[in-house]
């Protein structure tokens, strides 16, 4: 980057040189009322719009699109902006810090407290599809599940904590992502064994050359398989 770079600087730029990017989904009322206030209170947006440079005198909004929309509504000619780096990480963190995007946590590694706070956030959102779930039950079940191996969040629907496919699961997908570990060759983790069906467990017993499994019930199969070989 040249020393003449504007990255990090606060700039007063023409609105028509800036592309609004993804725009905001804020309600019309908030835009109108904020625009009026901005005009009455000095016409200066003290909280800057975050933009990136996409060409000479050409910019695109990556964060605080709401402020851009308000300035546009107010009919300002110029707007205060901060020029940020042009890369995906910068765009992402700007949107998250501006409160325009919900950050996600890694459910493969998340702590119990993190899971609890994520679920609480979802349950308490207005009109949440998760209103009816028991927070403590869902937290315990998800925390105790072998989630480090999950390849998809659909596994949550098997935990019997009233989270089904569709709206409820979609909400969870807003806050969780996974970076699954490969399944170990020999599975001894009881949580993981318990998540499988009896038929799958029997197949595994056969593979491991264990005999006398055919009449066992699932809990007994789990007990048998959790003993590590030798």
């Amino acid at each position, binding site marked *: 980057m040249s020393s003449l770079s504007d990255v990090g600087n606060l700039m007063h730029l023409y609105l028509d040189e800036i592309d609004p990017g993804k725009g905001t989904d804020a309600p019309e009322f908030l835009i109108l009322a904020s625009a009026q206030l901005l005009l009455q209170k000095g016409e200066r947006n003290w909280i800057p719009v975050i933009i990136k440079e996409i060409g000479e005198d050409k910019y695109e909004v990556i964060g605080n699109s709401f402020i851009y929309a308000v300035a546009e509504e107010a009919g300002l000619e110029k707007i205060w902006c901060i020029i940020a780096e042009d890369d995906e990480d910068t765009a992402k963190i700007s949107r998250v810090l501006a409160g325009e995007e919900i950050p996600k946590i890694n459910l493969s590694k998340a702590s119990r407290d993190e899971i609890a706070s994520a679920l609480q956030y979802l349950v308490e959102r207005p009109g949440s599809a998760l209103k009816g779930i*028991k927070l403590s039950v869902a937290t315990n079940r998800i925390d105790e599940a072998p989630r480090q191996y999950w390849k998809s969040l659909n596994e949550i629907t098997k935990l019997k904590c009233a989270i089904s496919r569709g709206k409820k699961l979609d909400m969870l997908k807003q806050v969780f992502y996974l970076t699954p570990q490969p399944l170990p060759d020999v599975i001894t983790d009881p949580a993981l064994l318990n998540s499988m069906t009896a038929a799958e467990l029997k197949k595994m017993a056969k593979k491991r050359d264990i005999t006398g499994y055919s009449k066992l019930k699932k809990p007994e199969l789990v007990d048998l398989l959790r003993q590590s070989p030798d």
Partner: protein
Amino acid sequence: MGTIRLRIEPFLLPNLMIMTASSLQTALQSLPENAQEPIVDKLFAQHLLEKLSFGHNDIYPQYQTQSGRGLAVDYAARKSQEKDLFLHTKTNPDLLVELKGRDINLSPDSAKYTSTAKQLRGYLLGGYCKSARWGLMTNANHIQLFRKHGKVVHPATPCWPTNLDNIDEIVSRIKKKIENPLRALIVAVYNNKGGVGKTTTTVNLAAVLTLLNKKVLVVDFDPNQQDLTSSLGIPLSNGKVYEALKNRDIDFSEVVVPYKLTDKRTQKSVQFDVIPADKMLAYEVDEVKLRQDLKPSALFKGLDKLRSQYDYILIDSPPNWRIFSQRALYAADAILVPTKHNNLFSLENAAMAIQKFIPETQELKGDGTPIALPVFFNGEKTTHAQVRSAHEAIHSIIKSAKKQGCDLTACFYPKSVKSRQDLHIFEVPAYANIANAAFSRIPAVYRDKTAREYYKNLAKEYFVQ
């Protein structure tokens, strides 16, 4: 360079000349009065860790306490095993040390003391420090040891002011504590108000901790109600507990009764131990006599001997501030305070306990315990309006406590910080099967899946890491 003031009282001088000063005394002496953190580190902390018997292989500086979060604690330490040098593996620290400069005031009433203790607590609860049992904070003027048990962090010593006379003694006491870790956490379940679910909480918490593979002892220290003992279908003690409390030669383990339950289907059994309520304490002995027989530390001394046999010792205490609750609180490391959001008195009484009874007990006991755990709402149906009025009540309780110089915010709203108000209070939801379980003499968590999840949640939120 500022002037270096030697902190030596004149009458000590001859003494020092005869006996060579210890390395810690020398370190303290050489430390400038306003030494900043790097100086305290270089001149004092190194000797301190050495005196606590941590060698070069046992100490890691600037230890990252959890993944993906900024600040590191100044030192983490663990005695290395032959093939497991802490310096190399960096896993399972035992002790965390947070240093400050002498320019930062760590006397117990100062704001910096509170924030540093909070900082150390945050480190101790970090994901990489599950094994940590001790946290030490010092600026060379003051020093305090904290103990971590699961998710509970409580003082293990007072915040001692140090000087040349006492530094060696203090450090050897800290060393002794670190080298003899205590197994059990003693928790008293207390609220001055009756009917908030103390006994239900105690029994179910004990039951669920047992399911989580913890060894648990429950003490029914409410001899007038005896609810806990009878809710488990255990016979009352007839003077034996009283004897054990009175007589230092009687081992408390003689009065312990096991409560065992076997699942008919899986044949698996769970067991926790109970010290039942004593009839004698209820009617036969009057309070004057009891006070003569039972010192404030009576229960503490009895239970302290059982510490090595349990992970948790839970005490059910009566809803008043008299002889039994006083001794229950004295015996405890931490106090769990159930409240009901629709009962203003339970909230006011919780505040009273935290503001008055617990500090009184701390003063008497002198080691910084017991501490108050954040209050929680216990099992009542909630409506939005009720929750709002509960919060209004809490708000005014906090406000009036502040006027008396006591900040209760953390006790009601543990997640709240200056930059973000978080008004969530932990809650064990209303559930009929919990209340009804008493009739069957079996704790609800052993009879009902949902009750189990609710109390597991309580156990994991407050105790088990």
